[in-house]
């Protein structure tokens, strides 16, 4: 997708200006409106149910960003991203529950923020570990190694060993008051919502920034042709591993954030289906675009919600529908992917780009 369309009379005297965000007043206005909507309007009008839907969207965005980075920007197809989210979630949980925090830190509400950071780093390192095969293998073979990450991490290590820590058996539960950021205890949906917003904004901004640095360009070069990239002097292995690290890092943040919304942490939240789901999100949203990760997340979560709302009234007459909702959900997911692959192979982000172009090129078609 091409560079931003700029109106006549917009020119740049330096590369910094050339790569600045929000170059025109129109875009600035649009972004300010967007921020007002998500920070003020939505919290003001949405009830708890819709806030939780928003939180679900935010969580999906955070998860999909890492997948987008690996698949969309670096060309490393991954089917094990849920593992790194899980690592983030478990690291954060264990740190909060088991680490002997000094009392003053607990009082100041530092335990959870610090645990998020550590969780992100641990997940990043864990991701690099499973990214190592990417130095040697590509394509289908790499997909299999990333799937191995899923099964080794979640189904083996987390289920068999980590879950046994403290002798709780299957799940960890976080008592109220343990999730605390500074003076605020994160207890209800609106608090989770704001935390989600801050994290999403930070992560999206970080990703967008990364993409205009040498690192981001190197990733794109590797995606487009790894041999050419190497010829141009890019250390392919290093940058691939860096991509795995950053993807794992953001995944870790996603996981550590999500525990604030969960009463009990168990491996059931991080099944292989979540990994697949995230790949579906970016396919539908648009591969190789940050907009894609966001649009895909919104679309997928909303489709499921609407499906649920549609089924509710029917459930009285067909009680079986309610019981089988999980299957319906998966069928809908499959159907959506098929439909998009056929009718909109470039995803929602491409459609968005086309709509913008329609008006940018007005009154012409090219």
């Amino acid at each position, binding site marked *: 997708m091409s560079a931003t369309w700029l109106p*006549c*009379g*917009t*020119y740049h*005297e330096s590369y910094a200006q050339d790569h600045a965000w929000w170059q025109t007043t129109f875009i600035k206005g649009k972004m300010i409106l967007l921020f007002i909507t998500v920070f003020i309007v939505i919290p003001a009008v949405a009830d708890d149910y819709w806030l939780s839907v928003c939180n679900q969207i935010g969580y999906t965005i955070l998860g999909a960003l890492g997948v987008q980075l690996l698949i969309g920007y670096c060309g490393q197809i991954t089917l094990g991203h849920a593992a790194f989210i899980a690592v983030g979630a478990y690291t954060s949980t264990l740190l909060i529950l088991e680490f002997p925090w000094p009392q003053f830190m607990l009082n100041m509400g530092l335990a959870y923020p610090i645990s998020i950071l550590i969780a992100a780093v641990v997940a990043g390192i864990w991701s690099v570990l499973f990214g190592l095969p990417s130095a040697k293998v590509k394509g289908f073979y790499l997909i299999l190694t990333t799937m191995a990450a899923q099964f080794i991490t979640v189904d083996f290590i987390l289920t068999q060993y980590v879950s046994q820590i403290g002798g709780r058996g299957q799940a960890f539960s976080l008592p109220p008051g343990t999730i605390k950021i500074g003076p605020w205890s994160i207890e209800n949906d609106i608090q989770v919502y704001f935390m989600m917003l801050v994290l999403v904004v930070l992560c999206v901004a970080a990703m967008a920034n990364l993409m205009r640095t040498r690192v981001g360009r190197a990733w794109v070069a590797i995606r487009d042709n790894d041999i050419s990239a190497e010829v141009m002097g890019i250390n392919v292995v290093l940058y691939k591993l860096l991509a795995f690290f950053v993807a794992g890092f953001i995944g870790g943040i996603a996981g550590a954030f999500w525990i604030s919304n969960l009463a009990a942490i168990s491996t059931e939240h991080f099944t292989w289906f979540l990994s697949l789901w995230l790949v579906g999100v970016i396919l539908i949203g648009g591969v190789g675009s940050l907009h894609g990760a966001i649009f895909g997340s919104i679309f997928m979560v909303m489709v499921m919600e609407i499906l649920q709302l549609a089924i509710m009234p029917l459930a009285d007459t067909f009680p079986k529908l309610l019981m089988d909702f999980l299957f319906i959900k998966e069928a809908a997911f499959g159907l959506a992917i098929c439909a998009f692959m056929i009718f909109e192979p470039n995803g929602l982000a491409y459609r968005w780009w086309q709509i913008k172009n329609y008006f940018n090129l007005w*009154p*012409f078609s*090219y």
Partner: protein
Amino acid sequence: MQPEDKTAATRIEITEDLTIPKLFYMQARRYGPQRVAMREKQYGIWRPITWQQYLDNVKHIALGLIKLGLKKGDKVSMIGDNRPEGLWAEMATLCAGGIGVWLFQDCLIEEVRYIIDHSDTRFLFGEGQEEVDKALSIIDECPKLDKIIWDDPKGMRNYHQDCLLSLKNLVEMGKQLDKDQPDLFEKLINRGTGKDVALLFYTSGTTSLPKGALLSHNNMLTMGRHLMDVDPCKDTDDYVSYLPFAWIGEQMMSISCGLQIGYTINFPEEPETARENIREIGPHVMFAPPRMYEQMTREVQVKYLDSSWTKRKFYEFSQKVGYHVADLKFDKKPIPWYWRFLEWIAYITVQRKLKDHLGLSRVRNAYTGGAAMGPDHFRFFHAMGVNLKQIYGQTEVAGISVVHRNGDIKFDTVGKPIPGTEIRITEEGEIITRSPSVFLGYYKNPEATAKALRDGWLHSDDKGFVDDDGHLVVFDRTKDVFTLRDGKPFSPQYLETRLKFSPYIKDSWVIGHNRDYITAVMCIDYSVVGKWADEKKINYTSYQELSQHEEVYDLVEEQIRQANKDLPEAAKVRKFTNLYKELDPDDDELTRTRKLRRAFVEKRYQDIVDALYSDVNTVHIDTTIKYEDGRESRINTDLQIRKITD
């Protein structure tokens, strides 16, 4: 007296003593390192050059030239694309007391040799390898040529001739001299008066060898002053310099006006990216020959044809409104409120976007001159809300002498004389001019000077008249005016520009002087007609083949019928043929400013002309054409002759 306004504060009094270097020094010191004098697009960004940097560069180049032995009055030639170095070289030449000569970038060797030799050039500034090669191939025939200075190192590694010098080294020499004699530059600047020769300008000449017009500092400065009196510019304005510096219009905007006002001059990345770069900058003033506007019109027409239904409808609506309002304005009639409202709708829905696409969003004044512009093109731009004005001028008045005023625009005239300029029509109908900007004479050509300058009046060789509103109407070059069979004089250029309004027609050449009827030789636009043919599934492999297709003839006939519609009976085109090639300045068919060299083509295509005026259906062509790289190819084909009946 001019009314007191903001521009009055920066208004520069032009005295007998003022020269371009003096003005340059004054402005550079006033704006200093804070203000951007010029920008050049390089590797995707507009690299700014402040007035301070401008001054430093000019200073060092000028001193370098002095070190090389430049004497007052020596000629320095410049050839190359529009870029800051070109302007620096010119300014440095003037500062060092030399006389600047500009050559067209695409001049053939023969033309370069003629001008270099005729002007007694001592130093030549070339851009890079291409220009250096040109210069080296003629240096033996031009004994006065001393040094060739280049600045683009690409491909220059293996050139070690003594006559070559890089701009870098020249600047180094200048810096050295500056160290030794720190006040030399100021001394150089302060000598000389406005009456001294500043530029030696070769006119493109539709008929003969180029003539060198001598222009003084005063000529140039008064020219800029008087134009700015009509349409004031601001020092915050942007201007894009992309037309050859060897064209007087570009000199007028970049030097005469640019220096006085201090607006920023922007140079495109490459000549090929000029259009795109203009759009980025969004200039406030524009001066371009009609072909530029014709290109824009064609682009809009073609894109309109290709756009979707809804978009086309919006476009058609805005065109209708635009034309209606523009016509009311031309007639100086009041515009009713509901038409104003519709115009506003047209503006926000289409016109604003359209201007944005063309890079005309910020244009306050757009000028066209140098050749005739058809009324259709002219109305087209006004219908879009662009303040396009005709100007009339020539190299010999250092630019222009007549221009349209805001709100007083008639598309068949070129406007009223600018302040300080008197225009008269002689008994033979020739336009003569008197103003402080009238040139000093032709270089080494006293006969031509005596013919052009009589009692201080410049004889233009153009025919015209002044209409009831005091507007000048320019007919055409005296020898180009037709006499139709009904005995009326008629301008072929007018017909040609009408024909060219069709997007499918690139060039046309109308014949009919003292003949029974009018005929035309048409050059189709290869890309537009090619696309049209693709859609119609017409096969073709070359321009030549495409131009001779039956369907293409039908298409061209349709375009001619359109143009014929509101022409007097005697002026209607009755027969035409499609030429097998495009008219090209490299074949001497057009001048470098793309004016048709009528006498030349008439001779060259004698067969076609004869066929058009005899009762045949085809004309056989057997000729060789020469490509730019020197290859030759033989053309052996039949051209169809098509009659147009009512």
